[in-house]
């Protein structure tokens, strides 16, 4: 029992010391002075350093002579892969550029000068139906293409401007001709994009 009492006394003393040392300096001095006479002098006000010292101005880095230090204006973040992943995706997992354009997730400029006006959008749908296969009717929207491309990009080197002039087949597109000049290379892939041209193949919403 004696040991238990000693432990209690020790705990109480420790708690008292901790409580007193947690007090303000003036109160602490008064309390100590009750026990020790020598502590009865006035406590010096403690000046604590502020947590955030005022920042000293950092001198600009002096470029080393001979080696130009390039200043890199970053319209797109340097970590552009992360940035690209945030753009809307199509069914195949690639970037859906048309939706990105419509949602204004991207705003591609029409020239090096940002004030260059974009060329007018040409709203003409060209339709081609294979003989006896109305389900596979393909619709070519000029509207979405002229938001990116100029007329001269396709006409007349790839497509003659005459209905039925180009003998387009899926085999030729897969081989990289006609639509395959861009689709599957920079534009959405042919293998996964069926309903984007063959509108009747689109799944019901």
């Amino acid at each position: 029992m004696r040991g238990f009492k000693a432990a209690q006394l020790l705990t109480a003393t420790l708690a008292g010391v901790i409580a007193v040392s947690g007090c303000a300096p003036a109160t602490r001095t008064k309390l100590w002075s009750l026990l020790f006479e020598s502590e009865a002098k006035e406590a010096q006000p403690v000046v604590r350093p502020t947590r955030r010292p005022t920042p000293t101005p950092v001198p600009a880095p002096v470029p080393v002579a001979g080696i130009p230090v390039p200043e890199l204006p970053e319209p797109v973040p340097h970590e552009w892969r992360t940035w690209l992943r945030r753009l809307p995706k199509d069914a195949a997992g690639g970037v859906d550029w048309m939706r990105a354009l419509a949602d204004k997730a991207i705003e591609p400029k029409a020239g090096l000068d940002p004030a260059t006006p974009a060329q007018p959008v040409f709203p003409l749908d060209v339709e081609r139906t294979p003989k006896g296969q109305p389900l596979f009717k393909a619709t070519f929207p000029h509207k979405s293409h002229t938001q990116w491309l100029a007329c001269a990009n396709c006409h007349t080197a790839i497509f003659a401007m005459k209905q039925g002039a180009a003998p387009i087949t899926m085999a030729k597109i897969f081989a990289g001709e006609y639509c395959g000049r861009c689709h599957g290379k920079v534009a959405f892939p042919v293998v996964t994009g069926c309903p984007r041209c063959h509108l009747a193949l689109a799944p019901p919403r």
Partner: protein
Amino acid sequence: MRRAWRWPLALLALILLLSDGLADLGDIMFTRPAPTGDTPTAVFPHAVHRAQFKCYVCHDALFRMQAGANRVSMDAISQGKFCGACHDGKTAFPVAFETCGRCHRE
């Protein structure tokens, strides 16, 4: 699922996971006819460029839309042709010693 397929599938999943984001649709590799030292092949990321400019800004005035049709060289770029039309330090990052790795990276 049969046990024998477990490890090959796990490996495939790992490869797919790691390969995510390593190449984008439209990345163009400028492979050279002859190996030139240790300089890696230059890669043109179409996706980054088309997010900022419409196709007709570069096609066909700067680049013809046909593989191998553009004789791109560092000399031509430093004369302001091809990539050098924009990558001059004003419109886009300059072609400089510090920026080699931004194109020559494969």
